[in-house]
């Protein structure tokens, strides 16, 4: 359906539908099918049958506002063309506090874009109301550039959260760094109370982080910047040093340093709640991964005993060498590639805080003993996904028995469970269900 939001066409539509004042309750009921109105609207409509002056057009502002808050933008825009009062509500600042700009090109995306007229409207009329802003861009550079152009215009704003999200390939990386950085710093400089910034896969750099710190150090709570290759360990250290309210941080392993962990654990710093670390290598054997001292991890845990440490690994087997040699307080572990027996064995030994473990694949041998050791030593483990890791049925049963009901999530593909003398697949299903106290099946893939 076409969607125009320029005022002229609204006015035209309004003129075309001047009967909107007598918008009947039955029509209203039809509308409610699509969108849930709070229950008291219903009483309003039955009351209107008694008091004839009271029509849908006369609903108090706050009621319409409440309804509007439950509508999607498109529905809201349509409703706003019903009558002048509803149109007024359409522009109430409350409804413009949060906005998601969607920028896609027909050649690269199946999704529609936010209409350019609406974007202009927002910049003109509602920029100062925006607080929670996100940009979703497809894989086309032009979309990312368009996002930067909008960012550069967000001058009179008090944005609190900003998210730049690539829905496909990361196109912000294709924007010239200077264009991106200057657009981003417009927001950093003008909105003085940013609390949450999500800029994964962008060309953000150290100087722009300095601008962020200079303007928003008191308010910043969340910073996600996985895979931002232009940031250095010193750049992120500066953020940690200055932004004592930082509670969540996402970054790549090469930015993680002992100094950073110590800065996050300083007395002035609030407790860190979530730390997400992506460990990615470009070419096998070429990247040497540094190690983090146990004392730095210990300092972090002493300061923030509840912190979630989430690590995503996308490494070749031979690159795991430096990891988990000593006790590591990781809570969530994800392995995107095959993991060796040795590595999984170390996890069982050295990750006592582990809560969730996801391993997509193993090497060439079943993982029985390693899993059993994990069950034994990782007492907080409540979720495990084993994908296509080969395990014998007996080994798997042993693991499940040891963990018992605390496993909220248990996922393994049926085809990698190796039947043995003790159990076949059917028995596994019933035995595991018994142990977990709920019906459980292995994951299946169609045989097609």
């Amino acid at each position, binding site marked *: 359906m076409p969607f125009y939001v320029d005022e002229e066409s609204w006015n035209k539509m309004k003129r075309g539908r001047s009967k909107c004042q007598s918008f009947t309750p039955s029509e209203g009921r039809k509308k409610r099918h699509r969108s849930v109105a709070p229950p008291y609207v219903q009483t309003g409509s039955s009351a209107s049958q008694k008091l004839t002056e009271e029509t849908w057009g006369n609903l108090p502002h706050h009621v319409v506002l409440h309804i509007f808050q439950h509508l999607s933008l498109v529905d809201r825009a349509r409703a706003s063309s019903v009558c002048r009062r509803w149109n007024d509500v359409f522009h109430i600042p409350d409804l413009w506090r949060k906005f998601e700009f969607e920028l896609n090109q027909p050649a690269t995306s199946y999704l529609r874009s936010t209409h350019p007229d609406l974007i202009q409207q927002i910049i003109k009329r509602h920029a100062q109301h925006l607080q929670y802003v*996100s940009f979703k861009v497809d894989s086309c550079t032009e979309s990312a550039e368009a996002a930067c152009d909008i960012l550069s215009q967000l001058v009179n704003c008090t944005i609190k959260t900003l998210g730049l999200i690539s829905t496909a390939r990361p196109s912000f990386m294709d924007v010239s760094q200077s264009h991106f950085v200057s657009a981003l710093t417009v927001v950093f400089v003008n909105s003085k109370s940013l609390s949450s910034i999500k800029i994964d896969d962008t060309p953000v750099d150290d100087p722009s982080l300095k601008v962020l710190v200079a303007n928003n150090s008191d308010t910043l709570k969340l910073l996600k910047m996985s895979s931002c290759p232009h940031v250095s360990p010193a750049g992120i250290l500066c953020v940690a040093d200055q932004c004592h309210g930082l509670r969540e941080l996402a970054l790549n392993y090469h930015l993680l340093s002992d100094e950073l962990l110590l800065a996050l654990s300083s007395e002035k710093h609030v407790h860190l709640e979530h730390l997400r670390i992506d460990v990615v290598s470009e070419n096998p054997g070429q990247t040497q991964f540094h190690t983090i001292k146990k004392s730095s991890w210990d300092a972090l845990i002493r300061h923030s005993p509840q912190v979630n440490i989430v690590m995503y690994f996308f490494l070749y087997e031979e690159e795991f060498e430096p990891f988990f040699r000593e006790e590591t307080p990781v809570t969530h572990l994800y392995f995107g590639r095959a993991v060796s027996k040795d590595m999984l064995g170390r996890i069982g030994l050295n990750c006592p805080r582990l809560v969730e473990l996801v391993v997509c694949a193993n090497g060439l041998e079943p993982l029985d003993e390693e899993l059993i050791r994990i069950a034994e030593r990782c007492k907080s483990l409540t979720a495990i996904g084993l994908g296509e890791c080969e395990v014998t049925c007996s080994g798997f049963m042993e693991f499940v028995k040891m963990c018992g009901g605390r496993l909220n999530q248990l996922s393994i593909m049926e085809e990698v469970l190796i039947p043995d003398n003790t159990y076949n697949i059917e028995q596994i299903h019933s035995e595991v269900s018994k142990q977990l106290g709920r019906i459980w099946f292995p994951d299946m893939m169609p045989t097609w």
Partner: protein
Amino acid sequence: MVVNSVHWFRKGLRLHDNPALQEALNGADTVRCVYILDPWFAGSVNVGVNRWRFLLESLEDLDTSLRKLNSRLFVVRGQPTDVFPRLFKEWNVTRLTFEYDSEPYGKERDAAIIKMAQEYGVDTVVRNTHTLYNPDRIIEMNNHSPPLTFKRFQAIVNRLELPRKPLPTITQEQMARCHTQISDNHDDRYGVPSLEELGFRTQGDSSHVWKGGETEALERLNKHLDRKAWVANFERPRITAQSLFASPTGLSPYLRFGCLSCRVFYYNLRELYMKLRRRSSPPLSLFGQLLWREFFYTAGTNNPNFDRMEGNPICVQIPWDHNPEALAKWAEGRTGFPWIDAIMTQLRQEGWIHHLARHAVACFLTRGDLWISWESGMKVFEELLLDADWSVNAGSWMWLSCSAFFQQFFHCYCPVGFGRRTDPSGDYIRRYIPKLKDYPNRYIYEPWNAPESVQKAANCIVGVDYPKPMINHAESSRLNIERMKQVYQQLSHYRGLSLLASVPTIQEEAEPPMSDDSQASSSTTGQPSSPTPTGSTPPNSEPSTPNTSPTDGAPGAHAQRKRVRPSGFPSKQKSKVKHTIEAKGVEQKTDEKQ
């Protein structure tokens, strides 16, 4: 009264277990067996030469078998709606029979033909034999919606009576009773066309692997059962390197074209099992492949948008990339990943690939690496894959791309490691990509990592003789896992079901959460995303304790310090979900979890 029957072959290209054909013969004075080159098939540019060859061979075989019964096959060129009025008049037809087609397109086409037949005073008789069960019956048993998890489907099937027993093959006696005059110019008017006639150049590819036809199908069935009897093990066979090659006991294309009746396959398996296992009744898993087919047929029968994302109520809306160049590399086996390229080459050359290979290339195209829509992959399979049924093809692609049927999305197949575990020596790759045949085992799955000296020794320089990998798998899988997370975190009805999606993040002191309903309405505009505050997950996607209402994720409810996972599925949320097909799926899933 004179009865002149026409049996219309579409799928079901066989004389054994063909109830509709039996109905045509029953008390008839004349019977003509007709195949119409249907525009959906003939007019579609999207059908490759291997599929055409398989079809024509099946028709040839059918004609040969009918000749032995003193009859012939009539291959009529045209569209059914044009052809039938002419045939009705010319042959004075009084009865039309055909096999039931449960797919939305087929149902629509058949309804039009039935109506037309009525106008000409022609009785129509339709029999369901392409699937073991009538999909509508399964839907009825599942509270009038198709089961959306395979387990649920199996549970329904368990409650059903056994499929109907297959019927014997058509006999000479039966045919003799309704002997039909064959004109001298039959071959000219109604002969099976050749590939050349259909515009294919066929020189140089005589060594095709799968020969179409009922005769071949029945031979293969015997071999298939012999092998099962010899192994005497009804567990799923372990997958080895050998599994990747076309097997002389493979049956899937024959089931697709109906050269083999699925009921005959079913009952043969069942009898063999009972013979070898002392009459114990066989487990459902014995019929795995057949049941998957039924599952997808059932899911697709009432959903005309089953083969696309938009407007498909069971399909998760995912912001796939449009990337024709990357798609072409995948489809033509030029990705630079030998495992993927070998599979796509086998598919193109032979028309069949092992189901693990299907998983590998489907994952690579969609959520694993290229982030291209499953619809594009489905179309390529439709062109090349001999056993690509509309329902099964679309359903499997949705499954493998985690677009439907409640999948865990965390797991994606590695285009290097997955193949290597199945076939460590790389024989499969050497067979389909001869350029790489001299690579040592160590590098055959990742030739770009081979030192230059090794590449030279193997006479194949990566980047010159064989493409460099088109994508960095580690990087793309990292990105794609995040994209999937974004998508799944916005699906309230998947809450608590997926690993990774519930890895915690702090909550924004933000707006009241958007209700499920507004999300639903925004997705009807083709935009899967809901406007949510940024910087973290939408507040209502945070795993919360089962007893808190979803609105508790609102102002002030800051990070839950300790993550509490819902055990099973919060029952409260049931009342929130709308009565869409998805919602029913959730309830199913819930049932299964509890």
